């Protein structure tokens, strides 16, 4: 009861002021049959007991910090400076609400304005919003915005989009009763994909083509297999047809080394890598940037600069007539919150990194991946599938990758994501409704299949980690 300040005396005095005899008199509108339920739940517990209970859960998990770690696939293990967590745990940021009263929320608002600027600069775009739930929903919101802007109903996926992003896109689009078509670019240019992909035959005329019915083309870079892409040809195709080019980035550190996707109409994705721990998948930080001409079709919160009654610069949430609390059923999105504190963590971390630190971080990630690739390709019968990569790539093992990952986990090494039984297929799956089973990314434990393994290295990866992996792999492959 430590969180409750009311005393017995205070409660009695208040009931008297209200003019009722007991607390249940205040529930007079609730039918008696719905009152008095005995919950099958334990009673309150002290801090120590709660800590013990949750510590027990935490101790059952194998944390990324507990050993060599090579898993990425849309969530990345990076170092977070101590100052980041200190700042975001300050009461003034942690326990504030959405800045609806700007006179007493300028700290949150200026931080959002700085976040929007950082995202716009990193993506080479003109404007950015105050953040989205995560990369997958940001990608879907980008596609929804393209449908609104172009008033068209066809979405073309240009390459190996993260399977969760694809699945979320499909689920949302199912709400349009089959009116929205999601199709894979056909044929996939060779440089866009790993060997063997996109070879499926075109089912019907127009499928997989960027044409006058196309609302947008979505391309992820680096793609799910870690391969960076260029967009010149797609930009041209979009210009010719009026489709929007959406570039998805789910390892935002890559933007410190790869050219800015400035040619895109919308750049969106996941910014968890800067400032946010892995936290078993969330909360993360979706970002959303675009060209200014699409501003009024953007989803989510926006913070703008203005001045106060004394002429001093200040910040407010603005252009909110796009949003649900005003536009109701005509809103650009039903989104209400952003990921405020996550955006703050990102902003603090970026301010510490600065231009030089951010670029150096990107370079260190890339070199770690290069070192990992060199070490793995020195092992017999192991092939690196990517020609190019940033900090992640696919390696082909001569054994079942899922089994290998389990064996390595037993040795305390998290080796990567097996693509064995659940490759993030470019084929959509499903029969026109709902979500494809092929879009699940859950690492499966069942045997069989091939040896494809998605591995990642970051600035956290040491030479010793790589040596542990290669040594353990030798045993597993023996």
């Amino acid at each position: 009861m430590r969180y409750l300040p009311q005393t017995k005396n205070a409660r009695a005095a208040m009931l008297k002021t209200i003019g009722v005899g007991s607390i249940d008199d205040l529930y007079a509108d609730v039918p008696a049959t719905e009152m008095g339920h005995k919950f099958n739940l334990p009673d309150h517990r002290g801090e120590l007991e709660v800590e013990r209970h949750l510590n027990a859960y935490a101790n059952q998990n194998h944390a990324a910090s507990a050993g060599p770690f090579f898993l990425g696939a849309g969530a990345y293990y990076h170092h977070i400076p101590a100052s980041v967590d200190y700042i975001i745990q300050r009461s003034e940021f942690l326990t504030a609400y959405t800045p609806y009263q700007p006179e007493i929320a300028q700290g949150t608002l200026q931080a959002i304005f700085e976040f929007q600027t950082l995202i716009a600069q990193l993506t080479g775009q003109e404007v950015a919003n105050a953040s989205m739930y995560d990369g997958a929903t940001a990608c879907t919101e980008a596609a929804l915005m393209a449908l609104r802007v172009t008033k068209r109903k066809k979405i073309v996926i240009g390459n190996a989009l993260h399977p969760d992003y694809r699945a979320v896109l499909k689920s949302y689009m199912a709400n349009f009763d089959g009116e929205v078509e999601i199709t894979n670019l056909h044929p996939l240019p060779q440089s866009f994909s790993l060997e063997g992909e996109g070879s499926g035959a075109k089912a019907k005329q127009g499928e997989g083509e960027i044409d006058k019915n196309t609302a947008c083309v979505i391309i992820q870079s680096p793609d799910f297999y870690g391969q960076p892409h260029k967009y010149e040809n797609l930009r041209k195709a979009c210009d010719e047809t009026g489709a929007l080019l959406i570039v998805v980035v789910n390892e935002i550190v890559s933007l410190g080394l790869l050219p800015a996707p400035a040619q895109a109409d919308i750049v969106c994705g996941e910014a968890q890598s800067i400032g946010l721990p892995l936290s078993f998948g969330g909360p993360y930080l979706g970002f959303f940037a675009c060209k200014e001409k699409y501003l009024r079709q953007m989803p989510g919160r926006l913070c703008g600069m203005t001045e106060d009654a004394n002429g001093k610069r200040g910040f407010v949430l603005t252009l909110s007539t796009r949003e649900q609390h005003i536009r109701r059923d005509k809103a650009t999105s039903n989104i209400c919150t952003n990921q405020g504190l996550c955006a703050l963590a990102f902003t603090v971390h970026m301010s510490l990194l600065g231009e030089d630190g951010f670029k150096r971080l990107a370079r260190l990630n890339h070199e770690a991946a290069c070192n990992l690739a060199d070490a793995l390709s020195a092992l017999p019968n192991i092939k690196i599938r990517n020609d190019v990569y940033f900090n992640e790539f696919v390696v082909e093992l001569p054994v079942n990758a899922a089994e290998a990952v389990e064996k390595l986990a037993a040795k305390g090494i998290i080796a990567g994501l097996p693509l064995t039984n659940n490759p993030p297929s470019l084929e959509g799956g499903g029969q026109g409704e709902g979500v494809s089973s092929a879009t699940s990314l859950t690492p499966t434990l069942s045997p069989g299949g091939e040896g494809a393994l998605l591995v990642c290295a970051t600035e956290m990866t040491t030479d010793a980690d790589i040596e542990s992996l290669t040594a353990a792999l030798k045993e597993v492959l023996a």
Partner: protein
Amino acid sequence: MAELKFTTDHEAIYIDGDTAWVGITEYAREALGDLVFVELPEIGRQVSKGDEFAVVESVKTAAEVYSPVDGEVVEANDNMEGDLELIAKPLADGGWIAKIKISDPAQLGDLMDEAAYKDYLKTLD
């Protein structure tokens, strides 16, 4: 002969022959406060009476503007995008949002004249 007409939704209409110049009434302007944006209709769009064809926005409100008649949008007031204060001018003097070519003049009979609109305003809170 030109005359002003009004709707219960606070559209103001200036009838210029077979064309209706549509804007919003002073009452609506005051209720909305300072406008920050006007979304204009596409030229050539066919509208039915009661269709939403434009949106006027203040900071906290987006109000749809409905067509008072069936017809075709023949002109939109592009000047308004750069100068939102125009909305406060008399319709014939730049305060119109769009011009609609009237396809059924009989519908004009459903609209209020100035005296009727003033009476109607008195019935509002």
